[in-house]
């Protein structure tokens, strides 16, 4: 197992959460109701907190003196390793909830598996993330059912979100050499092994919500190799501008 593989793997864990955490934070002050404003930003806080821990560990594993802030604010889009699903613009509330539901179920299964990592720090971070993800999954699942099995308008909107998002879910479960390396070293988890359970849990809730999963067709991919949609650059320009305009600033 080469150290770069573990570094790359930790970047994927960190970037997934940093990017979707940033998307959720865009709801701050714009939630449909006050409680939901608070809920989305709370989930964002958990995810950005998790990202901080993963990127800090990534920097330590890399051993070149890069901190979590350096990795978050001073890499360009091509160096980000998040799945494409997580960088798509936040859309309407239904789109945000559906995306968060898809990711939170994935994250819960992934973090649960990572509690058995041979890396003690990674296992500890994962154990905490499991507790947080449980809340995220339950919150989103309730909204998916409320909106899907709600009014004609809400149903149409979230069915549209499912149709638009589904083609981005395949990438979450693709295993490449990096995944296989860290899995055989006992450090990480092969994402393809999470697929069956994820599909079972997600299908159960979508069925409850009277929503239909599109017939599986083409699946988008590329984020893990740094091939992103145009949306990531816009997100990063907003997220990174203060750190890049005032490098080394503190308050």
């Amino acid at each position: 197992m080469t150290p770069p593989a573990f570094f790359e793997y930790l970047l994927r864990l960190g970037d997934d959460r940093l990017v979707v955490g940033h998307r959720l934070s865009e709801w701050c002050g714009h939630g449909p109701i006050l409680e939901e404003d608070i809920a989305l930003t709370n989930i964002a806080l958990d995810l950005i907190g998790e990202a901080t821990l993963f990127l800090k560990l990534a920097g330590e594993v890399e051993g070149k003196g890069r901190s979590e802030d350096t990795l978050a604010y001073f890499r360009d889009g091509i160096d980000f390793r998040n799945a494409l699903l997580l960088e798509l613009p936040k859309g309407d509330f239904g789109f945000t909830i559906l995306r968060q539901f898809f990711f939170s179920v994935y994250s819960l299964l992934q973090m649960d598996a990572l509690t058995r990592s041979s890396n003690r720090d990674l296992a500890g971070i994962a154990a905490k993330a499991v507790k947080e993800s449980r809340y995220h999954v339950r919150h989103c699942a309730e909204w998916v059912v409320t909106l899907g099995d709600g009014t004609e308008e809400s149903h149409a909107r979230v069915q549209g979100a499912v149709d638009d998002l589904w083609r981005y879910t395949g990438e979450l479960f693709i295993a490449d050499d990096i995944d296989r390396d860290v899995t055989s070293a006992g450090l990480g988890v092969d994402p393809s092994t999470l697929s069956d359970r994820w599909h079972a849990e997600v299908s159960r809730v979508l069925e409850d919500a009277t929503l239909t999963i599109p017939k599986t067709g083409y699946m988008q991919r590329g984020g893990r190799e740094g091939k992103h949609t145009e949306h990531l650059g816009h997100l990063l320009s907003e997220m990174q501008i203060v750190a890049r305009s005032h490098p080394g600033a503190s308050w």
Partner: protein
Amino acid sequence: MVKRAELSRDELFAVLETVMDPEVPVLSVVDLGIVRDAESSDAGVVVTITPTYSGCPAMREIEQNIRSAFEEQGIGPVDVRTVYSPAWTTDWISASGREKLEAYGIAPPGRAEHDTLITLRRRADLLRCPYCKSLNTVEKSHFGSTACKSIWVCNACRQPFEHFKAI
């Protein structure tokens, strides 16, 4: 700075008992269960803590407050270390901490969930209103003013209140 070598664990914890959680100021860091260890030697004091939530913004302030509490008593240097494993659970909040929470108007956490990984329905646990003690209460939001709390309302006395989530 005066070094006081070899303070007992009890003496160290007595100092830590005076460090309050900045977001729930009736709870000390010991009540909260985030202090995992404290020991002293000629080289100073080492306090090991574990975070409550991954993104809890109070952790840095807590670290600083722990350092100042010792330094005010001429004890130092103080090294505050963070460990992630085992992960903090609300089951570590002390019995006196739970009483202090309720007296402060925050319903204390029930037992943490350790069982099934994915539960899509809320637990049907009854929660007692910290004001009028009625069990006729309802959750308004899973998420509250801080990462560790949810928002509830009492149907009996109509008082909104916060609940320290069980994790």
